[in-house]
């Protein structure tokens, strides 16, 4: 197990930008899509996309770990 890589960290920055820091941009009711207020829909979509971001980060991290394990 290594220190987290810069690549994985930058993938993790995306959910923070979209779900947290950018709140003034998306905290509104309209446009209502799929019957949901815009802020709620935005968060729901990003919960799923965050999981996807972390899956990419997981691929990055395991790729780094594997050669080290072989060398041991």
């Amino acid at each position, binding site marked *: *197990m*290594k*220190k*987290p890589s810069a690549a*994985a*960290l930058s993938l*993790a920055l995306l*959910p*923070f930008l979209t*779900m*947290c*820091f950018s*709140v*003034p941009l998306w*905290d*509104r*009711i*309209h446009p*209502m899509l*799929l*019957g*949901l*207020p815009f*802020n*709620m829909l935005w*968060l*729901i979509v*990003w*919960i*799923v996309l*965050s*999981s996807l*971001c*972390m*899956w990419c*980060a*997981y691929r990055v*991290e*395991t790729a780094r770990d594997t050669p080290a394990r072989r060398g041991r």
Partner: protein
Amino acid sequence: MSPAAICLTTIGAIVAFGTAIGFLAGVRRRMDLEQWTVGGRGFGTLLVFLLMAGEVYTTFAFLGASGWAYSRGGPALYVLTYLTLAYVVSFFFLPQLWEAGRRYGMQTESDFFAVRYGNRHLAGFVCIVGIVCFIPYLQLQITGLGIIVSVASFGGIGRVPAMSFAVVLLVAFVFAGGVRAVAWVSVVKDALMLLAAVAIGIGIPLVHFGGIGPMFAQLAHEHPAHLTMPGATANLGHAWYVSTVLLTSLGFYMWPHAFAAAFTARSGDTLRRNALVMPIYSLTLAFIFFAGFASVLIVPGMANGDLALLTVVRQTFPPWFLGIVGGAGALTAMVPASIFLLTAATLFAKNLFRPLCAPAMSDDQVARLARAMVAVMGLVSLMLAVFTSSTLVSLLLTGYAGVAQFFPGVVLGLYWRRVSTTAVFTGLVVGVASAVVLMVSHHDPLFGVSAGFLALCLNFVIVIGGSLLGAPSGHEREERVRAEQFASMFE
């Protein structure tokens, strides 16, 4: 049978079934300290997932989140965000923490501070702060149980007898089962809660408004301000949202039980994979929000928002269904509450009492003392739940302001060679003290920013600044050796 009887019987049956599964999981294993607290460090991805989901989705998510959607509106959305971001954060230190835990035989958060910083007083302080922060969290669960039983009995059973009974059941359960029992009851609890959340999140808007879309359309028309921040509050705007999300997502795994749950895993990779799946699970909460927002239109003007969800369920569905929702809710309170009891008791016996009062105690004696402490903690929280009142969400946020202060010490301790023990200790004390002062003097939020977050910033500045400037402590050699051992683990 009267509606109340049908409802209470259903709840009773669900709780009995869940408890039985827990007891069976604990049978035929020798319960030494390692087995009781960290399940012998042998949990695979599924069991770790169940344990973590079990302790995360508490009454807070069930009644508290819907209660805030009802009484505060928009600001409640922070819950969806922080739960997702907490897992994102965990991905970057939990696996490494597991590695350190295995190497040094850590069982608790206080163990980490003792091993990394080699300071008994720091470890003791971490322990005390951890135990104190648990009390509002436990109180939250017990209050939730009281609400469920009194709504389900149609007012027939008072909150105090309901809460007392719940505490007795809890203590017995933790006593017998340990952490493995808790993980297995989570299976029943999560399945039921998922079912209940989806059913009420879709069912309530459908019955009253013809669907989720029409419900939100009506709400946007009648109370447009309720759906965005600051909603029905004066000062919970965007600055509050950002600061609270940061405080709670960084603080999430600083809860001593969540921290300790990491040590139950079989490998660090288990924890990484867990971080990918858990956000999806928090989608369940969206359904609870639908029900909470629908309550604004169905039962306007309730004084206690935490009652809104169950009151609407009672109005909308037959009694047996209220029983299922209530039973799911009861397990949702009991499972985490037993983890809190288990963790707090272990912390007290192993990290506070033994090192300070009776160094000669054996592990078996520690385990016995821990069991006795379970009863004491249960009683204290029951007293608080009976004699004080606060909304479920504000109880949780109080605890978060405290535990989040561990974050700099944990994360910098893992990765940064230069971090100094004195700086970590000072930062932690100042962080906790300033959070307490701001909250007690009713300055939360301060200028629209969460008080706990301001305290955390101060804490970070002290830890980083103090470590860089570094007054000599006289233990530089030992500190450097420990820092080297930790940092070299992750290269």
